[in-house]
């Protein structure tokens, strides 16, 4: 790995001699430890001069290791691996310079670290709360190691909504606000957008998300073992859950240097592609629904039902398949099923091609064209991902750039459109469906034989990064292994997390009627974005007992 990064290492050592503490190889990339005060310059150099694509940032409470808080900024060096910048500060004064002014995409990730770890980011443009509810006490940070995850503090204030994007541009005289959400028919998840409209034109938008913040990340950090995490990772999202469990597995396999059998790699790729097909078909349907085209919605979901059938055939369940574990997969695909799967995928392809021709009629195109424009440069700055990025003309795809599973051996192309409007994002997805069908066919034809999983020996304090191309873009997992078969730190970044801030650019000047479809055009998946699962400490299961008791009481009471 270090060999691949050698030229970058050399360049950085020359320029930032005094800043860099050291380089270290990690699973899936290179870790560069820098002094905290140099962080913005190094990040800016990496982002602007080396043209690496920003991925995400993560805080970490490493007080039990070296008495420090650390921040990781992850960039993707396409074709080589991930480039991770690490800076740590003493626990007594957790202040780290912010890189948001240099790398705008880091805005949310830094604010999240602010919420969850209590790390202060110096010179952050919007140092506001992002993830936690507004009535959450100020000095309580859930991801710190000394926080008891099942602790539910009482409200510190009346519940209000503070919105996280609120930079109004000019011309707001007599403009009116219109709430969109949390329970709006255009959104199937609770999220709050506040549109500022003038007549029928949206002039600005505020956003308050993280209603689906269930607190995820601590389970792997505390009590779940490596093998249990994939199941909860799959429940981060009901649509692209398999991408989450896969990229978790990839990260841990890379961190612990496990060789996964080829058949398992192929099976993972197969399920990932099936997931992409059903998710994109779902999106096509929802887009039709938002455009008021109910027939399109019904027809694309009718086709999607075949894909669900296919998934059930191959994995045993319609979704949340539960077949991923570190080191391979749990369930093999039997020979007779492959023939049936081939038939189904052929059917899907034929029916979808008919639907595609019927969907892309001029009247639909008019509603999509030149609406929700996201320029290429803004897309890179905000580090948007997936079809949103490819619709703005950036030809990136984790499957090609950081190959994982069986993608190195498969033949496929990346769909890219340059216009950056809703139509191009739609076309990207439609092309990707056909491309995925193609990949599924290839895998079904060339499924190698052999074992499907391998055993491994866990080691503590290894860092691994894993990324998988989910339907909505790159799913990214960063993890640090811990003792007792458990994770020390687990950071999950879903694509929508990077895509939502782009909405403030996309929504400006859009007619009100097109606001829902523009929001939908990034295919937002808030449950991924809001993830952060904190799972209960098994040693203190009294909470569970009381909770169950109340449930029983409830049933009895009726």
């Amino acid at each position, binding site marked *: 790995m270090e060999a691949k990064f050698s030229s970058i290492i050399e360049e950085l050592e020359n320029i930032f001699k005094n800043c860099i503490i050291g380089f270290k190889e990690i699973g899936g990339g290179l870790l560069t430890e820098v002094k905290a005060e140099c962080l913005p310059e190094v990040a800016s150099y990496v982002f602007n001069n080396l043209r690496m694509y920003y991925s995400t940032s993560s805080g970490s409470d490493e007080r039990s290791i070296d008495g420090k808080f650390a921040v990781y900024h992850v960039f993707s060096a396409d074709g080589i691996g991930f480039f991770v910048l690490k800076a740590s500060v003493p626990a007594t004064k957790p202040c780290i310079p912010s890189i948001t002014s240099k790398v705008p995409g880091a805005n949310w990730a830094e604010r999240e670290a602010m919420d969850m770890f209590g790390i202060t980011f110096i010179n952050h443009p919007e140092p506001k709360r992002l993830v936690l*509810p507004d009535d*959450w006490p100020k000095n309580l940070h*859930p991801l710190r190691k000394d*926080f008891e*995850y*099942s*602790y*539910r*503090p009482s409200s510190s204030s009346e*519940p209000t909504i503070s919105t996280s994007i609120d930079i109004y541009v000019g011309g707001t005289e007599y403009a009116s606000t219109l709430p969109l959400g*949390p*329970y*709006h*028919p255009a959104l*199937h*998840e*609770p999220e709050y957008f506040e549109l500022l409209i003038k007549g029928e034109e949206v002039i600005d938008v505020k956003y308050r998300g993280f*209603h*689906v*913040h*269930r*607190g*995820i990340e601590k389970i792997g950090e505390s009590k779940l073992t490596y093998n249990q995490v994939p199941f*909860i990772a799959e*429940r*981060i*999202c*009901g*649509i692209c*859950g398999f991408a989450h469990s896969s990229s978790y597995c990839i990260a841990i396999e890379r961190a612990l240097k496990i060789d996964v059998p080829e058949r398992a790699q192929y099976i993972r790729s197969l399920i990932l592609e099936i997931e992409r097909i059903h998710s994109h078909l*779902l999106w096509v349907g929802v887009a039709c629904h938002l455009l008021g085209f109910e027939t399109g*919605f*019904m*027809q694309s*979901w*009718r086709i*999607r*039902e075949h894909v*669900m059938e296919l998934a059930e055939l191959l994995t045993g369940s*319609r*979704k*949340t398949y539960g077949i991923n574990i570190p080191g391979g997969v749990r369930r093999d695909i039997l020979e007779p099923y492959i023939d049936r799967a081939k038939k189904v995928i052929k059917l899907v392809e034929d029916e979808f091609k008919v639907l595609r021709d019927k969907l892309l009629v001029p009247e639909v195109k008019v509603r999509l064209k030149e609406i929700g424009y996201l320029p290429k440069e803004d897309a890179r700055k905000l580090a948007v991902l997936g079809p949103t990025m490819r619709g703005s003309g950036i030809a990136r795809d984790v499957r090609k750039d950081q190959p994982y599973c069986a993608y190195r051996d498969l033949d496929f192309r990346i769909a890219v459109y340059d216009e950056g409007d809703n139509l191009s994002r739609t076309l990207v997805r439609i092309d990707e469906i056909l491309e995925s069908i193609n990949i599924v066919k290839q895998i079904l034809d060339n499924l190698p034989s052999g074992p499907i999983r391998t055993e491994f020996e866990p080691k503590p304090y290894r860092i691994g990064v894993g990324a998988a191309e989910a339907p909505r873009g790159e799913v990214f997992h960063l993890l640090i292994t811990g003792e007792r078969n458990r994770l020390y730190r687990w950071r999950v970044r879903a694509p929508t997390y990077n895509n939502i801030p782009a909405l403030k650019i996309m929504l400006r000047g859009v007619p009100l009627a097109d606001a829902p479809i523009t929001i939908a055009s990034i295919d937002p*998946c808030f*449950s991924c974005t*809001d993830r952060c*699962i*904190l*799972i*209960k400490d098994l040693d203190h299961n009294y*909470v*569970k007992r009381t*909770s*169950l008791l*109340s*449930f*029983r009481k*409830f*049933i*009895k009471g*009726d």
Partner: protein
Amino acid sequence: MARINPPFKKSPWIFHLNTGGCNACDIEILDALTPYHDVERFGMKLVGTPRHADVILLTGPITRESKIKVIRTLLAVPRPFAVLAIGSCAVGGGIWFDSYATIGGLPNLYEEMRHKYNFEPPPTIYIPGCPPRPEAIIFGAAQALGILKKKVKREVYKED
């Protein structure tokens, strides 16, 4: 629990209320609307505002952030109405039943609403599963509406 003979037996309009779920249940609900399962057969219709709703489909654990909004939504429904708690999370909080960011499942919410808002819980059907299949959702809905005759006697757990 579900002793209902509601006026909306023949035309239950449903409102989809995601209280913090992972989308899997939500998508299975939408799936139930589409050609394979087509719940419009029973007059079911997805409506956009709780004002028009007869049945609330509730998915996901109730998170701390969305709690107050869920309460407002439940108070915005004209009576009589029924609630369908879909998926393990809605039924009892699922794997996040005791996380700091949630208050657990629907029963916990009811308890809080009883105390704070003097809210008498409507007839509620619990459909577990992660996610429940569309068939299960339709079955539960049919039971809630009394379209389906129950062949099993209702039993209530008693603590001795």
